[in-house]
């Protein structure tokens, strides 16, 4: 049963990107590609050959693989409701964040490995924005640790909804907000970054992978899909009552992931990307909101 979370994660990673694409095309009134389009893209990338830059070396070759394995390792730590995670220990969310950071480290230096100034620019932005986003998650989980008295994903999520404290409603709202906003930063979506923009100067993540092709590009796409699903799963864990039986859990899970995709898709359709120098403000706001959650908990609990 411990595999459950991991399996559902993979399944939702398979579906969300296509779903977001559909939402966007419906919102824009286009016919749009089908829900399976991302998979056709990946299949095409797998079939294609690879082109490497003369400048690039070992780092460029291994970085996409490292990034993907980091994300898979991080996914293993996530529980699915009361069906615990594959591996769980005290403070596992520290490992979770740091292994994601390892993947990011490699994607940043892989961008620098090409020697392109575009990719250097993307790398610099990615490093800065992800650094600013880091504290939000920690503060949120510190607040959750105070509420539940646990310090692992499984522990926190299992105690959280049965603590019988009605104040957790506020906490949940803020938590969902923080996780959702962080996911926009981490998965490079509007308003922080625009995955579909066409000018290199305005990109963050896309400009880092200008030189990747074929198999490696496919790995990078898969990593992004998985990351989205991971955040969906986290949000699901935060709002799902612990004692529900499996059928309801699955229904809620599907609803949460669908809602996540719809919201992301709608934001993408109706909102413009931030000006680049407004991004730090946007990202620091997430930490500020997390801090508010913490203060509320402190006032209520102590």
């Amino acid at each position, binding site marked *: 049963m411990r595999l459950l979370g991991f399996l559902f994660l993979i399944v939702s990673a398979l579906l969300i990107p296509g779903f977001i694409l559909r939402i966007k095309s419906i919102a824009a009134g286009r016919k749009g590609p089908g829900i399976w389009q991302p998979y056709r893209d990946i299949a095409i990338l*797998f*079939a294609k050959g*690879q*082109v*490497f*830059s*003369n*400048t690039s*070396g*070992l*780092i460029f070759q*291994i970085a996409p*693989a490292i990034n993907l*394995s980091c994300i*898979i*390792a991080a996914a*293993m730590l996530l529980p699915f409701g009361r069906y615990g995670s594959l*591996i*769980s*220990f*005290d*403070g*596992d969310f*520290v*490992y979770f964040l*740091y292994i994601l*950071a*390892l993947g990011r*480290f490699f994607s*940043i*230096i892989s961008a*620098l*490995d090409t*020697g*392109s100034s575009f990719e*250097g*620019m993307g*790398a*610099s932005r990615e*490093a*800065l924005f*992800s*650094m*600013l986003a*880091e*504290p939000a998650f*920690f*503060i949120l*989980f*510190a607040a959750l*640790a*105070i509420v539940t*008295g646990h*310090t692992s994903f499984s522990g926190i999520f299992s105690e959280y909804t049965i603590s019988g404290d009605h104040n957790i409603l506020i906490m949940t709202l803020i938590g969902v907000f923080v996780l959702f906003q962080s996911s926009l930063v981490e998965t490079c979506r509007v308003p922080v970054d625009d995955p579909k923009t066409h000018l290199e100067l305005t990109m963050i993540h896309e400009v880092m992978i*200008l030189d990747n092709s*074929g*198999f490696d590009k496919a*790995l990078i796409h898969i990593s992004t899909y998985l990351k989205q699903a991971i955040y969906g799963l986290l949000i699901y864990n935060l709002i799902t009552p612990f004692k529900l039986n499996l059928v309801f859990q699955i229904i809620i899970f599907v609803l949460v992931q669908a809602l996540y995709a719809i919201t992301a898709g709608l934001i993408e359709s109706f909102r413009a990307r931030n000006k680049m120098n407004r991004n730090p403000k946007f990202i620091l706001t997430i930490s500020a909101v997390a*801090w508010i959650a*913490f203060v509320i908990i402190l006032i209520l609990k102590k």
Partner: protein
Amino acid sequence: MQAESILIFIVITLSVLIFFAHQRFKQLITLALLAVIAVITTIWSITVFNDGFNTPVIRHISLSGSGGLILTIDKLSAFFILVINLTCINGLLFAGGYLKHYYTRKKGLNISIHFFAYLFLYISMLLVVMVREGLAFLIAWEIMAIASFLLVIFDAEERQILKTGISYLVQMHIGMFFLLIAFLIVEKDTGMLGFDALKYYFKEGHHLAVFILFLAGFGIKAGLIPFHTWLPEAHPAAPSHVSGVMSGVMIKMGIYGILRVVFQMQNDLFAAGLITLAISLLSGLFGVMMAILQHDIKKLLAYHSIENIGIIGMGVGIGMLGVSYNNQSMIFLGFGGGILHILNHSLFKSLLFFSSGNVYQASQTRNIELLGGLMKRMPYTSVFFLVGSLAICGLPPLNGFISEYLIYSGMFSNLSGLDFKGSVIVVMAIAGLALIGGLAIFCFTKAFGITFLGEARTKQAEEASERDREMLIPQLIPVIFIAAIGIAPSLFVKPVMDLIAGNLSLTGSGPIVTPENGSLANISLISGFFVVILTAILIFRHLHLRNVPVKKEPTWGCGYGVYNPRMQYTSTSFAYNYNHLAKPVTGTKKDINEIGEEEIFPSERSFATHTGDPVKESIIDKPVEWSWFVLKKLAVMQTGKIQHYILYAFIFMLAALLLTYLKII
């Protein structure tokens, strides 16, 4: 015991041989002498660690058999001895290759003094951690300062380096002054000079002021802000192996002193812990924020030492708060994380200094803006530097993660049990540590990316190549330890936990809960999974690439074909966005004269940015300027005429007489 004493005396006497040997053998002789002491002390330490209790081993070093120098080795000393031994032997191995290029350029005496000072730096550090008696301790502390001073000024032909060395020596003595006062205050109350007196001194009453004196004195050595100003100057000035040893172990002597004091404290631990935590957090943040803006690779690493000392201090601070809350998991995880980070930092920092030494020798520059593309020409060095970078950023599955994880766990473990004040402090520390982690990643992606990746920016970088194979071995040893601690942390954490239990005499109060045991096994497990997944993907990729066409082409330039390495992102441009945000702290200044409206054909312009150290400017440069100002005014008195001076003497005597007559003095 007698045999050991004689052996140590022989080693110290034989050290004179360094001066008489041929250039090529100086390093070997030093190595042989150092190895003898290392073997003896390692055996001592291992005996202490194997002992279940914290019974200190006491050795008398004297020729007569009784009295003499008393060495006391408990688990804390033993831990430091092992760290010192490992790093110093490594450093000396590296020195063999590194200094080879200086043999023709330098006089024999220079090289001799260098190795001699190295040996005595090593011996004095060992003494510092083994000697408990105050006077002997301060003497060892002084030898350490002087020996390291001699090592720093190896290139003293350069005036700047000599100046740096002297400023280092002065600052060390200010630290010494603080320590002396602190020890004397303790002596006044207890009649004993030294660490043993602290136990009695701290037993009753409130002694926060004395703790702060100790913190300042040891903090100067450790490089906690605002006492860090010597660090970013001295490390780049010294040869790489010296920087490695100084940053790897010598600054930890400050932490050793702080720990010795903290372990004896009984009261005021909350306030003291809070002070330690706050200073450490600021050091961590400030260190890494400044590091990002450095272009000199060794200066960058020096600022990272300040950051890492900050992380160690945060662990210690959390442990102290744990003692005041009487919470075992905070105590063990906080102190444990801090102490383990001492070992970890000594490993990856010496590794990083060594590999940046390789880069310096190959390219004759430490400015990363002039480098680039070194990974193709120096594959081993770059892999070593990469491993060091990942470890120092605290990324799994390497060792830096383990100690940072312990500190995080210490902070999270008792969060729900703390009171209001405590939780706010701890959560600020958590957010700070998270930010430090993110900034460190920013810094090292920059340092590694700009130095080793992309295209060579200058001819020097183009012509760089891997020099000595023998310099690679001392870099391989830390890499092995870094990986071992990362993959199998339980082996290393257990002794550290024993150490804390022994020193805080917690053994008596029921079974010790070391909460991390299960977690560490799980960390090994998931890191193992990670490695397996990675290998699988890479193998699959390898097989896949054999079946599809693979081409090599120029980097995509947005349609622009005339590519030039100077178009690459530089260290400055990488940090540009960050610098924009961090300006209030780092105080970067721009030098540009703007183009006026009346200038239709603008003339030649130059642009430069400067990043000083704002703390140094405000606590050293400014006061020095003021005192110059005042002293210059006073110099009116210095007329050079003997009549005037006699007049001064007469006025002085008159004043003295008058004051005595009025019974004021």
